[in-house]
């Protein structure tokens, strides 16, 4: 039975009912990023401290004197969520060891957008992962700097039009391929790296739970549809996430101690990327040829990934 199609039936039993990111935040309607954060909190549970970077999720959730957070939460600046999380983790570790706080296990989580992870926050994240702090870092990738007005990031996909890499008479938008952040994290030899998308809530929750169970660093790259920035209809945010996965644009996989595994949600046969591109304003200017060349890249990247999953797999390979 397809759990997602019978979600209402299964959800109450599979998903923590407690809301740790409460309603009343200021995210745009149809924002899949805030949906992802909410699901993440459900999966993490109460024994969590979150360090957030500046960005949409920080702004929409913490307008003084209100807060949407039911878990301890700290925001300091844009580029340092991983460093702040490192400090929280180190501080709690010392205090617990010295018997100054409750003797209970608390998971520290760093979170940032694609900008706060892949660009300006890259060094702090690399340092935190390399040092091996016991933390999960989650990148909520909506493929641009949305909070400041849809400027490109290194996570913006080839061809997407943004306010700093706009499509114009002599430009087709973003000129570079999306930075492969999950692979960079794999190269840090962290025990667990996964990609996820809130359009696959159970897969996402399972991955957060898995990361939570690991004593050490882990990284989750969460694809987060942003209707505002992508100029796509807000009611399609969930189906858009599914299309990104089904076309192989954003494959779901996990890497545990170097072993790759594709998520069972990955289809046998990928859909063409044009299905995914067609209702997004950011891709509207692309010609058939341009789409074809992006299709080739998506196909070849996906092939590489499936080969890794085949040759570097878990268990009796």
């Amino acid at each position, binding site marked *: 039975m397809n759990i997602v199609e019978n979600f209402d039936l299964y959800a109450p039993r599979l998903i923590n009912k407690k809301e740790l990111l409460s309603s009343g935040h200021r995210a745009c309607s149809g924002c899949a990023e805030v949906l992802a954060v909410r699901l993440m909190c459900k999966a993490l549970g*109460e*024994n*969590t*401290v979150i*360090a957030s970077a500046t960005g949409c999720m*920080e*702004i929409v959730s*913490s*307008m*003084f*004197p209100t*807060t949407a*957070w*039911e*878990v*301890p*939460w*700290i*925001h*300091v*600046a844009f*580029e*340092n969520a*991983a*460093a*702040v*999380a*490192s*400090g*929280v*983790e*180190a*501080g*709690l*570790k*010392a*205090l617990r*060891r*010295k018997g*100054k*706080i*409750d003797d*209970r296990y*608390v998971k520290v989580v760093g979170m940032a957008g694609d900008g706060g992870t892949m660009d300006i926050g890259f*060094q*702090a994240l*690399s*340092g*935190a992962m*390399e*040092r091996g702090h016991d933390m999960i870092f989650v990148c909520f990738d909506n493929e641009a700097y949305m909070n400041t007005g849809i400027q490109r990031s290194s996570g913006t996909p080839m061809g997407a039009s943004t306010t700093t890499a706009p499509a114009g008479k002599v430009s087709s938008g973003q000129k570079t391929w999306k930075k492969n952040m999950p692979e960079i994290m794999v190269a840090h030899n962290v025990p667990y790296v996964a990609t996820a998308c809130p359009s696959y809530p159970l897969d996402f929750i399972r991955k957060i739970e898995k990361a939570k169970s690991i004593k050490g660093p882990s990284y989750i790259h969460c694809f987060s549809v942003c209707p505002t920035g992508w100029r796509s209809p807000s009611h399609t945010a969930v189906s858009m996430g599914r299309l990104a996965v089904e076309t192989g644009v954003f494959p779901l996989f996990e890497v545990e101690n170097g072993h790759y595994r594709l998520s069972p949600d990955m289809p046998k046969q990928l859909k063409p990327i044009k299905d995914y591109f067609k209702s997004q304003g950011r891709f509207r200017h692309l010609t058939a040829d341009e789409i074809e060349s992006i299709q080739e890249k998506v196909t070849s990247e996906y092939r590489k990934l499936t080969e890794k999953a085949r040759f570097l797999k878990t268990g009796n390979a």
Partner: protein
Amino acid sequence: MGKRVGLEVTVAVAEAVALCRIDMAGVYPITPQSHIAEHLSTLVADGKLDAEFVTVESEHSAMSAVIGSSGAGARSYTATSSQGLMLMHELLPIASAMRLPITMAIANRAVSGPLNILNDHSDIMPQRDAGWIVVFAENGQEAIDLSIQAFKIAEHKDVMLPVSVNIDGFQLTHMVEPVEMPTQEEVDQFLPPFVPHATLHPARPVTMGAFAMSDYFTEIMKAKDEAVKNSKKVILEVWDEWEKMFDRSYKPVETYQADDADVLLLTMGSMGETAQLAIDELRAKGVKAGLVKLRLWRPFPFAEIKAVVKNAKKLIVTDRAVSFGGPGGPVFSEIKSALYAETQRPTIYNYIYGLGGRDVTVHDFVGMFEKIIADTGNVAADTYVFWGVRE
């Protein structure tokens, strides 16, 4: 009573910080601070200090990490210098706005460019308005004492602000001085455990670092200003207590032969001891010279400054940083504005000196006095002069 020992000042500072039983240190190496980082990590490695030493990948992350750990309720320490401090700059006002009692040593060093590793105050001066408590040490003993006092001041419930202890790079950090190191028992008696107001722990979830627009921002700034100003009361109390316990006195403004002086010189940091020798030399010649040493830079000790300079005819303010195209060195312009409304005040002169480690001798200070005493309007009193510059 503590033992008298001969130690390099950085090592002594690290030992003193360890006596404060910190929970966490996040320090990134930079000359001339690095020995603090090295010695702290050695103490942790030898099991002499039960703390997390986080080997951050930059000073930006050092400050970020101590903000995080202090938010978690851990006694948190960092140290830096020059470029490292400039890299932390973005986070300093955030730490104070979040009312986190972090303490930091700054081994003062010139800011690039050109790159230079030696001492002046161009690193701390751009941090002036960060909302931190800022103190300056004159010698090794003071560096130790201020480092211990810093925790007590920062963590006091009426303060809850970060503190920086400024120690002149090389000139002070790398001196081997005889110092009296307090004992663990003494420090435990002086410094109570850190009891934070709120912490990042699920036992009582809080939101730290929320975002505030025009409806609250002004009030938050005003609250921070009040906090910095009010901290002075606690600083004075802590210094009193220190004096009673250790018999070493600390005041926001210290003086030497200033009471009857016609001409005063004002220094901040390690230059005070050299200047003191110049005063002795001048006094021996019958010149009524005196010295004012500014220890507390923030909160600025207005009343104390006014009181000590009011009877002098001339005041030479010395600066170890430049405010390019500005009203004079940063200390000079602060002193000048502090005295503006006073009906009885000295004529104020400004020498900028000792930049990028340029040696300053007793002779230099004597020279400044001689020039200013002889001045009948040739040395501009309303602007600044680079002392000893080759032109």
